[in-house]
């Protein structure tokens, strides 16, 4: 058989025939995720008129965007989904205590290499970190998936990023992906599958790979993927009892473009308002005052991220002029942070720690910005109005850079604070 890319292999398996970039196929879905917007899916699902969902085992539902409910309407949304879950007897439902979907699904062992996963959330690309083909879809098409288990999909072509060199501490996965987005532009990877390979990726933890795949969608990628290795195996151990095989891209398969990037000497990166591809090295903007700093989200709310921030803040206190909000990505992370003393250390440094969830990332609650205010965050979007007032500004950076900036009350280079 001819050499095939990862995307081709997964979609060939899912459609039962050999596929090529550009083909439009009907694909069988392995896993379907929705959060609060399941309430919207539900409506369309009822309109379709299917008697029951196609496979209760393959649907995962949870609440993370507005938890605990921040408005009566949000509470009503939660309520309608809970009723549906009970009526259908859906086994994979996590109510609002578990955390962010993109963290909880891998943690609970739902994600395995080689799967075809869709979710009603654009950062569903995160699961590519475990070698799954995983992409965001809308609520209406999710209803069709619930009813039929199938979805129309265009087979993407592939951009392969070979990342070489060595990152200098504390430069992290977030800096790498911000740099790539800056180079490619917000639509530079539109419709493509982004494969991340090379020594930089090999040296990354699964957590770092999640950061990369999560934000691959900010350059337009349909899916981002890093390929399974020993670290993947270790991560999945104890999380799933199911057997799995790595599904790898053939290195001699035809890809649309290959990028070789040597990342040695890369500085911490910051995305400036109001677009994610407006990226510059931190030293160019150091000194800009900030009112708020946020560490959390599906991009950077994991143990490794809280630890990176704690390392900077350890034993020091942030100025009263800065609000530092820390949101652990999941209950597992929250418990780890509590047990390890990381949380108490962060609180002593002046942090406000909230319950696991999306927190202020999407501008719904728990830390909105007033006109003229400036926030530096480990989240993934800095669009106008994303975190509150349209007159506010959001800067994106790594946990180390955000912690350093909180400490200084202005955008700061973590290398100078360590």
């Amino acid at each position: 058989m001819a050499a095939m890319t990862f995307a081709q292999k997964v979609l060939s398996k899912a459609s039962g025939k050999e596929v090529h970039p550009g083909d439009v196929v009907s694909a069988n879905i392995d896993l379907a995720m929705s959060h609060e917007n399941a309430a919207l899916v539900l409506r369309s699902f009822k309109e379709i008129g299917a008697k029951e969902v196609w496979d209760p085992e393959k649907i995962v539902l949870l609440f993370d965007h507005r938890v605990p409910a921040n408005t009566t309407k949000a509470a009503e949304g939660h309520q309608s989904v809970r009723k549906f879950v009970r009526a259908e007897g859906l086994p994979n439902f996590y109510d609002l205590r578990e955390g962010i979907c993109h963290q909880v699904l891998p943690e609970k062992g739902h994600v395995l290499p080689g799967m075809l996963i869709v979710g009603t959330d654009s950062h569903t690309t995160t699961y590519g970190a475990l070698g799954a083909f995983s992409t965001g879809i809308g609520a209406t098409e999710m209803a069709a998936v619930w009813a039929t288990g199938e979805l129309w999909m265009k087979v993407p072509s592939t951009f392969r990023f070979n990342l070489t060199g060595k990152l200098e501490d504390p430069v992290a996965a977030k800096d790498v992906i911000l740099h790539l987005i800056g180079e490619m532009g917000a639509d530079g990877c539109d419709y493509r599958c982004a494969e991340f390979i090379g020594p930089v990726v090999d040296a990354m933890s699964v957590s770092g790979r999640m950061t990369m795949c999560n934000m691959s969608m900010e350059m337009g990628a349909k899916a981002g993927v890093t390929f399974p290795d020993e670290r993947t195996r270790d991560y999945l151990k104890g999380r799933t009892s199911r057997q799995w095989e790595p599904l790898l891209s053939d290195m001699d398969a035809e890809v649309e473009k290959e990028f070789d990037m040597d990342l040695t000497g890369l500085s911490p990166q910051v995305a400036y308002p109001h677009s994610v591809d407006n990226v510059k090295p931190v030293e160019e903007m150091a000194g800009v005052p900030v009112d708020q700093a946020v560490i959390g989200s599906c991009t950077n709310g994991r143990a490794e991220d809280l630890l990176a921030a704690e390392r900077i803040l350890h034993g020091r206190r942030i100025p009263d002029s800065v609000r530092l909000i820390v949101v652990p990505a999941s209950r597992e992370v929250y418990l780890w942070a509590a047990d390890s003393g990381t949380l108490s250390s962060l609180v002593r440094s002046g942090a406000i720690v909230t319950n696991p969830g999306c927190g202020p990332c999407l501008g719904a609650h728990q830390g909105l910005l007033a006109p003229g205010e400036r926030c530096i965050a480990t989240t993934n979007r800095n669009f106008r109005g994303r975190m509150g007032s349209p007159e506010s500004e959001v800067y994106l950076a790594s946990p180390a850079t955000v912690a350093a900036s909180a400490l200084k009350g202005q955008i700061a280079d973590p290398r100078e604070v360590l």
Partner: protein
Amino acid sequence: MKGKVWKYGDHVNTDVIIPGRYLDDYDVKNMARHAMEDLDPRFAKDVAYGDIIVAGRNFGCGSSREQAPLALKHAGVGAVVASSFARIFYRNAINIGLPVVEFNAADMFENGDVALINLEKGVLINETNGRTGKFVPLPDFLLEILREGGLVAHSAKRFR
């Protein structure tokens, strides 16, 4: 399909099409009242049924919120013409029955011109200045989904 043109630039994102602060309202008609509000406060007030958005690159980038095309559709928008679309917005639009045309029409139109679109033939006409453009029509089965009013109606056929 015919309507007045609302012209916008590149990277019109889903947060300005329908800001996150309105997403807890599950009634699309309420949401439609806030469509484009952070980018163009006049839009929701003055848009008329059948009006056409003409934009640049990467229209609808950002979140997977289907409320974005829904808000536009319920505000009255008849079609969006853009030189490129963000992937999920493009899918969502088709699946909820809002026609999308991938075509660089920025130079053909001024704000307020009248546009005429033939989706099947792939023809775009500016009735105000007479200029015309040709685009590649959508594959038949996507046109069919649009004709049926979206993926819900399309999928429902299976269960009848």
